[in-house]
């Protein structure tokens, strides 16, 4: 009986730790969410009346992709 409780306890501990880690990682990675086209962003801004934070960048570095 005691060993079963111990196993369940360990399982819950591991599960909670993993869940907490996911939450913490998500918080760490929190960043700006972007509209990726001018058409969609402008539509959202016009509809909401909110100002636009505009950034444009080439998705390549010295013509090599995978880096801004």
């Amino acid at each position: 009986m005691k060993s079963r409780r111990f196993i369940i306890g360990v399982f819950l501990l591991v599960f909670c730790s993993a869940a907490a880690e996911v939450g913490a990682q998500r918080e760490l990675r929190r960043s700006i969410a972007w509209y990726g086209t001018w058409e969609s962003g402008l539509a959202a801004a016009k509809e909401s009346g909110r100002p636009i934070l505009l950034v444009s960048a080439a998705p390549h570095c010295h013509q090599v992709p995978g880096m801004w």
Partner: protein
Amino acid sequence: MDESFLSKAKVIKAAEAFVCVRLATYESAEEAQFLKTVFIGRSGQLENTVFCILSPDGQRRLIRAGRSPLQMFSGPDQMAATMNRIAANYSGARQIKHTYPALATVRLALNVAACDQQPLVIVRSSSEDERQQCKSKLTKYAWSDFRGQFTFAESKSDTELVSLKGINKQSNIIVVDPDPYGQTGVVLSQLDSSATDDEISDALNLALLTHQERTSEAPVHITNGRRRGIFWKTQIPVTDPGRGGPAPNQRRRP
């Protein structure tokens, strides 16, 4: 793109009062025309990066335009303070009715996901209704719990997906880990259009846990890319005077 300011907590918080738009320079002739009306550098041409804050109709610059926040502000604190001041002038603004934030093509989205070191979510179906159904389900995650943690795209045809490994025929929501150069990708999780909210949330969490971040620094990434002959072909010519030269495999011989 310099992200030293845009990745700071104060700036991210201030950005919640804005509609944030990030375009890919040289990937759309129409957007390039618009960007030229916002900022042209000393070269007189559209340069690699553009930064500005605009009025909600996109017509009026609310700060001086430039190449990056680094050029415009002394630091992230000043940037956030300026953004908060501007936002205060729009205190009557409404909640944004967000839409699925897809990039123009899967090819571009795969590259952007690699640049951001994020997983890419692709809605895939030849049926408009089915795509719409999946996009509706994903939109709430894109702008809340998983805000800023994924890149998004949609695909009507599987020809766009040939470079991706592990896609099931029935899958309509596909989460992909891009390779470091955004040329290929491996499926991290996939669902069909009947997926529940919990299943979608689990699939996105799984993707974040299993996604592999790039370890190489910029010089190594560029050198290895060049050695392997990996060059990005833009949709319109690059006009930036600093890095505007064509890729070696696109150069004309004299």
